[in-house]
Structure formats: structure tokens, C-alpha cells
């Protein structure tokens, strides 16, 4: 229903080419599209060989951190005699990101196939798909596909007539952004509050239920079958050396054609915003873009020529993150936008670490009073100080996630903050 949008810019639909087709949701339709052939191929390979192919492809985690997937799999212990688990992170909740939802609801069997291949590579006996609770429709579609997979020998005992078995279970979340953090996710799976834990232990040492576990994002796992089918070199025809492949882009905010797109990594960000998405509906210039979901740093309207690769966006001073550009036109109130983002993190802080629990709420209170015209001379300095204190001091990166947009908005749009201060205060500050 939402994909793909027509546009003048060439899209490279590999992950998403069957989105929009109701038939592709069924096992029959999926098989007619070559589904589960990659799984069959993986059964003729050793787990180490499967891992090697993914490693060679250079596939990087699509959940935000961009960690090399094959390398992550290779951390899993071999022949340790313990049960291993795969967790598929389908707790999509980064503001701006809505790509995994489309993978799940249009191509559930692609996700199941990716999970099974990953499970085979890491020696997992059980794959848990952790879907955010609000995704009712997506969960219904995925439920139906999992049942079909079980009924047709694609999950459970003796998959595809082989001696290999792997269970697949859908675990619905219940409303917590922090359950998208990998240790928070595993805690939630185990029936705890979704509080992240300090690493070590790393998931590959002691993850879900204390056993070696790998957590992979939906889009990451959905890319695995085509890599197995066509090979690492084929996958590397797109993107750069350090950012190979294609990527889903969730584009939102002030855009003529918002929505999900798939591009080879490396296009200029401005092409995605202006050519694919048609620029702003108001026709006004773009004031700011948060390129990788709300946890990444603001780029100004004059910084959009950067390449959309992990390294390109890092060089530009932001991050690829979940590849979810949020576009704001010239009339946008940056302070209000930043306040709304900060409110989200204050709401979603799990409360374990004081820098995050207190810091996020403090940031909101300061931004609210600046917005209301009651800013104090010291407020901007206090915000910078909070940025300092909230970086790198907590169990997970939720506090850091508010610092990236906050600090960059202060650096790049300081005039917007000062415009809301009383003139005397700006002079004094």
C-alpha cells in the first residue's frame, strides 16, 4: 500500500521487491518467488561456510549500530554443548524508522527464512522473533506465516527433510522502546522489565536464558537469503567497500512523497530527499534533516550532499543509524522539535542510570521553559553540560541518543534557541 513510490530516481529493490504483493505473504506465493531456496542451499553448507559468505558480503547490522553481521555470528562459541538462541529484533520503535514493519507485513516468509539461515550459522536451536506489541497487523501476518512454516516442514523438527531442527517463536512486546536495545530485548524475552544490562557478559557469551545468543535486526536477517543465493560478490555490486549492499530508507517529516524506499548505499542524501521524496510540500528550503532516526545528529540544509553510507554520514557529523531521514522545512521550530524528541527519551528511559533518568527529564524541562519564553541565561550552557554528563556514562546508549540531536541542534541552530530568550538574557548569557 505504501511501497514502492514512483519516483524519477532509480531504486534498487532487492529486499523490497515483493512488498505490495499479497501473494508473496503466503507460502505458496513465496515459494513461487524462489522462497526457501537459500535455506535449502544453507543446509548443504556447514555453519562456518554460511557465516563466511555473510562475512565476505560485508553486510552490516541494520538496527542502527552497523556492526558487521558475519563477524557478530562468528563470536558465537562452537561445540560448547549449550543451547544457542537467535533473537530477531522486530521491536522497531526508533522515531523516524518504519522499514521493518513493511518487511514483516509484506514478506513474512523472507524474515522466517533469514532467521532460519542465521540460526543455522550460529547453531541456534530456537529463533525468537521479538515483535513490538503495537504491530498487531504485522504480528497477525507473521503468525500465519510461522504456522504455515511449521505445517510444511520449514520450522521445527527436521527442516526440509534434513536432520537439522530449529523452532521459531513469536514473542510480542508490550510497549517499551528500550526493549529494542539488545540486552533489554533479551531481558524482556525472559519475562523481566526490559532493562539493559552492562556488558560483559556479551550476548554471545551469556545472552537469553544465560546462553550464547545473537540478536539481529529484521532488515539484516531479510538480507541474508539473497546473499546466500547470489553470493557475497553479487551483494557487493552495490554500495561502497565499507557499506555494501542495498538499504531501506524510511523517509518522513516535511516531504511530498514520504515512505519507504530501497536504494544502493551511497547516493547523496539530497537525491533521496529532493528527487525520490520530492522535497518539501511547502516548497520552502530544507532547514534541517535528522538522517538516521531521532537518535542521530541534525544536519543543516546545506549539509545534504553527503553520501548515504555509514562512513559518509559519519564524516558529515551524523550517522546512518536506522536510515530514517526526518526532514524539516524552513518554518520548523527547532526548539519545539528538539523538545518533542527529548520527551520521547525521557518517557522511554528505563530509569536504571541516574544520568539518563534525571538527565533526559531535565533536558525536557529546560527546553519547555525556553519554548515558553522563560529561558534563563545559563540554560544553553546547562544543556551543553548535560550533553557532556549524559555521554558514555550509562549502561546503554539511550542517554547518548538524546545528546546527538541535542548537541547538534545547539551547535547548528543556536540562533533559534536565542530567539526565544528575552533580549536581555541573550546579552547576559
Amino acid at each position, binding site marked *: *500500500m505504501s511501497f514502492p513510490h514512483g519516483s524519477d530516481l532509480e531504486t534498487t529493490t532487492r529486499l523490497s521487491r515483493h512488498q505490495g504483493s499479497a501473494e508473496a505473504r503466503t507460502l505458496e506465493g513465496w515459494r513461487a518467488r524462489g522462497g526457501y531456496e537459500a535455506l535449502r542451499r544453507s543446509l548443504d553448507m556447514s555453519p562456518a561456510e554460511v557465516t563466511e559468505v555473510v562475512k565476505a558480503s560485508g553486510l552490516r547490522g541494520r538496527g542502527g549500530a552497523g556492526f558487521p553481521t558475519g563477524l557478530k555470528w562468528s563470536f558465537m562459541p562452537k561445540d560448547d554443548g549449550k543451547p544457542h538462541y537467535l533473537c530477531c529484533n522486530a521491536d522497531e*520503535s526508533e522515531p523516524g524508522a518504519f522499514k521493518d514493519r513493511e518487511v514483516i507485513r509484506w514478506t513474512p516468509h523472507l524474515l522466517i527464512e533469514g532467521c532460519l539461515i542465521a540460526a543455522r550459522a550460529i547453531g541456534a536451536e530456537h529463533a525468537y522473533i521479538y515483535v513490538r506489541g503495537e504491530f*498487531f497487523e504485522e504480528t497477525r501476518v507473521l503468525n500465519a506465516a510461522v504456522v504455515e512454516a511449521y505445517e510444511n516442514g520449514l520450522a521445527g523438527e527436521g527442516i526440509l527433510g534434513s536432520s537439522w531442527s530449529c523452532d521459531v517463536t513469536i*514473542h510480542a512486546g508490550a*510497549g517499551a522502546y528500550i526493549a529494542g536495545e539488545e540486552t533489554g530485548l533479551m531481558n524482556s524475552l525472559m519475562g523481566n522489565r526490559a532493562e539493559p544490562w552492562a556488558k560483559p557478559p556479551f550476548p554471545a557469551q551469556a545472552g537469553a536464558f544465560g546462553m550464547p545468543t545473537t540478536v539481529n535486526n529484521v532488515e539484516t536477517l531479510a538480507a541474508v537469503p539473497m546473499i546466500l543465493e547470489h553470493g557475497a560478490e553479487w551483494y557487493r555490486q552495490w554500495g561502497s567497500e565499507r557499506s555494501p549492499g542495498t538499504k531501506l530508507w524510511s523517509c518522513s517529516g516535511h516531504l511530498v512523497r*514520504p515512505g*519507504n524506499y530501497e536504494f544502493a548505499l551511497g547516493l547523496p542524501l539530497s537525491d533521496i530527499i529532493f528527487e525520490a521524496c520530492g522535497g518539501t510540500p511547502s516548497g520552502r528550503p530544507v532547514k534541517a534533516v535528522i538522517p538516521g532516526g531521532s537518535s542521530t545528529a541534525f544536519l543543516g540544509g546545506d549539509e545534504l550532499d553527503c553520501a548515504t553510507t555509514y562512513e559518509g554520514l559519519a564524516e558529515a557529523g551524523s550517522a546512518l543509524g536506522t536510515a530514517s531521514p526526518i526532514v524539516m522545512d524552513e518554518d520548523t521550530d527547532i526548539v519545539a522539535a528538539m523538545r*518533542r524528541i527529548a520527551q*520521547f527519551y525521557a*518517557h522511554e528511559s528505563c530509569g536504571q542510570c541516574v544520568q539518563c533518568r534525571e538527565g533526559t527529564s531535565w533536558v525536557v524541562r529546560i527546553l519547555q521553559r525556553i519554548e515558553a519564553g522563560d529561558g534563563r541565561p545559563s540554560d544553553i550552557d546547562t544543556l551543553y553540560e548535560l550533553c557532556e554528563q549524559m555521554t558514555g556514562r550509562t549502561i546503554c546508549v539511550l542517554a547518548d541518543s538524546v545528546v546527538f540531536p541535542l548537541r547538534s541542534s545547539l551547535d547548528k541552530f543556536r540562533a533559534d534557541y536565542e530567539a526565544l530568550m528575552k533580549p536581555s538574557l541573550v546579552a547576559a548569557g
Partner: protein
Amino acid sequence: MSRRIHPAVVGAQPFQLTARETFDGPIFETEEGRRRLEAALSRYPTKQAALLPMLGFVQSVKGWIEPEDMVEVAEALDLTPAYVHSVATFYTMYNKHPVGRHFVQVCTNISCHLNRAEEVLRSFLAETGTREGETSEDGEFTVIEAECLGACGFATVVQVNDRYLENVTPDGVPEIVAKLRGARDGAAAGGPAAEGDA
């Protein structure tokens, strides 16, 4: 659901957020309760892991979770009621009090904020005659502000029970509310169900 629910998906049945049934006796002495518990337990190496699925099950029947339900779930899973309470209150989707027949959640996070979400929220409150979080006197509506629903390209996004309404504008709200009043449940409100919706 007509066919028998596979244990792999038992913890992932959509909550009927506004169901108004109660359990006929203790939850896990009902046939459905016993079956759900057994199925969930078969999917995890620990008993405790069935906690979220079981809380979800209780809510799917009653539409909310009472402290007494938490005690029953705790007993079934060998946990303390205090621990179950600490988990149930951590997650926003477990309703700790009853909500209206149409539970309306308006996302006002950044992408929706940029697309007049606050006006959409105000419009829902005005049309339903409620304050945020309050259930209307006729029990029809509860309207709350929600955090990101993960459909940012279709702002403003509004969740009504288990359906997403997308591209909602402030002007479109009166019609949505009127349809909901006449509908048996949220599903009939004209939510843009995807083609071939399962």
C-alpha cells in the same frame, strides 16, 4: 481464529484491547487459560518467560489487568506478585485500568509532530468530549497521546484498538469519531487494512 493456535504464536495473539469479558473463575482453571499457559510454557526454557504472553492473554480477555490478575499470573509462573507488578507496570501497553471501547492513541512524536499531530490530538479530545486519558461517560472513548508507533511516513498515525489509521489530519477527525461511534469495534472504523490482510 478458526484453526487451532500453534504454540509458536501463542504469545503473539493480538490483544483485544477493549474486550469486556471476565474469566469464569480463576484464570488458569479455565480451559482456555490452561491451554494458553501450557502452550506458552512449551516455547521457553524457563517458566518466567511466559510472563509477557500471559499478561497479554489476560488483557486480551478483559481489556485490562487488575492487581488480582497479577497475583494469579504470579502463582501460575512461580513468581512473586510484586515482581509481576513491577513488570506489568514497566510496559505501556498493559492497561492498569479499564479503557473505552475505542482506545485511541495519537502519536505526537517527531514525524507526526511535524505533521500537525498535536492538533489531531486536540481534535480527538474535542470530538469525544474527554480529557486525555479519561474515558467518556458512555464508555466509548479513551484518548491518549502515544509515543512513536513506527509508521512515521504516514503521519499523523493514530492507533485505535489494534488498528493503525494513517495520514490522519485534524479535519478528518470528526468523521473518524462518527464512524467509530457507529462501529462495533475499531476494525470497522475504516482503518486502511492492507490488501490481503490476514
